[in-house]
């Protein structure tokens, strides 16, 4: 019922970091599953990794890393009260995030084309370890992709808020927290890249 405005940017940031902890543990469960399965099927994981397009994986990594940089630049711009610049950087981030998703969808489409998806007749003929590899591949990159979409939605709202001056030089905690979330998406991808694309 408290009508007074209680503002605690440090608390908001702390809350966001705690939320990121839960995200890391969420993916942590999958990383545990991955480690166990890889220990069980080292050869099959090697074969599975060879099926993936490492070049596209690396390009996507560069795309995401750059987008993390532009988010930081947007925050710096807002701190300096340069609204236009902040909007340009945020827009660039959104474009890069979309690029990531487009490249990712091409990769997925290629896998579907080769019959390398769960329950596919072709995948069923491969050794069990490779089936698990692709099960994990789709689960982990899929969950990550979902996080990219959530992150992009958040950043779109931020762009709107910057445009309408709800985010200003003296009040940018929401942008900062969305940036933190975007970095998390980036960090998780940095782990997914070697685990899948460089497993061969």
């Amino acid at each position: 019922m408290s009508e007074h405005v209680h503002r605690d940017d440090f608390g908001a940031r702390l809350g966001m970091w705690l939320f990121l902890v839960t995200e890391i543990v969420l993916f942590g469960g999958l990383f545990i599953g991955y480690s166990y399965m890889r220990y069980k099927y080292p050869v099959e994981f090697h074969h599975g990794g060879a099926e993936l397009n490492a070049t596209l994986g690396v390009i996507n990594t560069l795309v995401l890393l750059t987008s993390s940089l532009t988010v930081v630049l947007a925050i710096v711009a807002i701190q300096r009260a340069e609204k236009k610049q902040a909007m340009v950087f945020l827009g660039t981030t959104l474009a890069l995030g979309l690029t990531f998703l487009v490249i990712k969808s091409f990769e997925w489409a290629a896998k579907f084309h080769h019959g390398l998806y769960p329950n596919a007749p072709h995948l069923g003929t491969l050794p069990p370890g490779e089936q698990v590899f692709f099960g994990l591949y789709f689960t982990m990159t899929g969950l990550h992709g979902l996080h990219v979409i959530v992150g992009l939605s958040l950043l779109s709202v931020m762009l709107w808020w910057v445009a309408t001056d709800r985010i200003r030089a003296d009040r940018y905690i929401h942008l900062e927290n969305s940036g933190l979330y975007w970095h998390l998406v980036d960090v998780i991808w940095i782990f997914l890249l070697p685990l899948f694309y460089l497993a061969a």
Partner: protein
Amino acid sequence: MTTHATAQPGYPTAQPSYLVDTGSRKGLLAWLTSTDHKRVGVLYLYSMISFFFVGVGIGFLMRLVQLTPFQHLITARTYNALFTVHGVIMIFLFVIPGLPAVFGNFFLPILIGAKDVAFPRLNLASWYFFMAGAILAVLSLFTGGGAPDTGWTFYAPFSLKTGTNVSLAVFGAFILGFSSMLTGINFITTIHRLRAPGMKWFRMPLMCWALYSTSWIQLLATPILAITLVLVILERFFGIGIFDPAKGGDPLLYQHLFWIYSHPAVYIMILPAMGAITEIIPTFAKRTIFGYKAIAFSSMAIAGVGSLVWAHHMFTSGMSSLATLLFSLLTMVVAVPSAIKVFNWVSTLYKGSIDFQPPLLFALTFIFLFAIGGLTGVMQGALAINVHIHDTYFIVGHFHYVMFGGTGFAFFAALLYWFPKMSGKMYSKKAIYASWFPMFIGFNMLYFGMLILGMMGMPRRYYVHLPQFHTMHVVATVGSWFLVLGLLAFFGTLIYALFKGSKAEDNPWGGVTLEWTIPSPPPQENFETIPTITHGPYHFEQESQ
């Protein structure tokens, strides 16, 4: 009963009580949109007690089925659905969120001298997540292929193959997990950021320490459950193969991931219960708590060690003997911080000037029942005994002693302790004492009966039983009747008090923590001015000022 006049500075008189609608919305709508932590706590209270009674009803029905050795009343498949739903409702909708969501929400900000939690809107959103998850879980009973029949643990590979509505139930549990995590984030931030001036870490009431350690477990363990449940859903819809042996997956991985969350969840259930007991005992012993820091650190120790014992649920599932040995050892280690608390409570009572009141009766009952539950838990930690009693009624008896005798009775004790503060009404103490007798007798007939049945070899989750188990089953079923009678009398008394009870004093028990310095029911912003804290939480007058 002595009344401690509380003419402290900052005593609010101007604000209306939190029960009064002052906004533009009135009635139910005002409650459903209020971000006041006290109202959110009360919303949780009413919803949880409703779910609790659904769970009680199902348990009661299962006991009726066991009244005869052969099949009667219901089919075997319905019985499977009943124990699954009983478990899901009781664990996910009552025992796990019970104390933190109700009393944590209502009292954490008051106990540390704050006006609200750190993120009030997120707090209300958590309640909506809770209700959404609960409704999905309940819907799963009536839609799709029928109620889930896997047991509350959703073990693979059966949960992947059964035609019943596992996906929806699992998705409900996933949403409930969200509610739990967000509440954890909220409480940790609240404790870090909103303590009143002078409220140092070691001046916080111990309930806050308990909630703090609970929140960390909620934060660190719940996401593992979330991802495990997501995997079950993906497995059911897309066949990703991680838990499916036919595709190279491993059902044991499911069990590990499930218990990595679900064992720490046991401490989510018990730590705030212990916290509430730690508030009650000093108030009625009229002296400071014995070993404040030992209790505070034992909460953190339980949270830490408790996260490393999960595989003791899986001693017979197939693990290396080294692994079983380590998990057995760690299981016994976790009993140490729990025992520290029990000794501290008893030491606090020693030479106290005990004022015997209903909350203390239920707190002592908690200690008694929890001790039985805890010790039978240590028994199961021993590998040789575990093999004998695995998946028997002994396990069922044990965890009902811990969860119902422990968390449940602590919930009742906390409710009795804080009811006058929350509602502004006082209940009939005689009626509460009268309801305690059938509850206590019935509880022990029912669950000690189960311990004995388990030792004799009665397996859990069977809808019929062999003749040699019959006598104890009858004892247990009759016990369940007393228990339900007691529960009805207990809640009947409280509901009657809500409407017809006498007005409660501001400090009916002579407590000294901050909630007793404000009116009953509390005003909307809790404090007129935020208090400044100059001493520890349990500062009774006979001790030096």
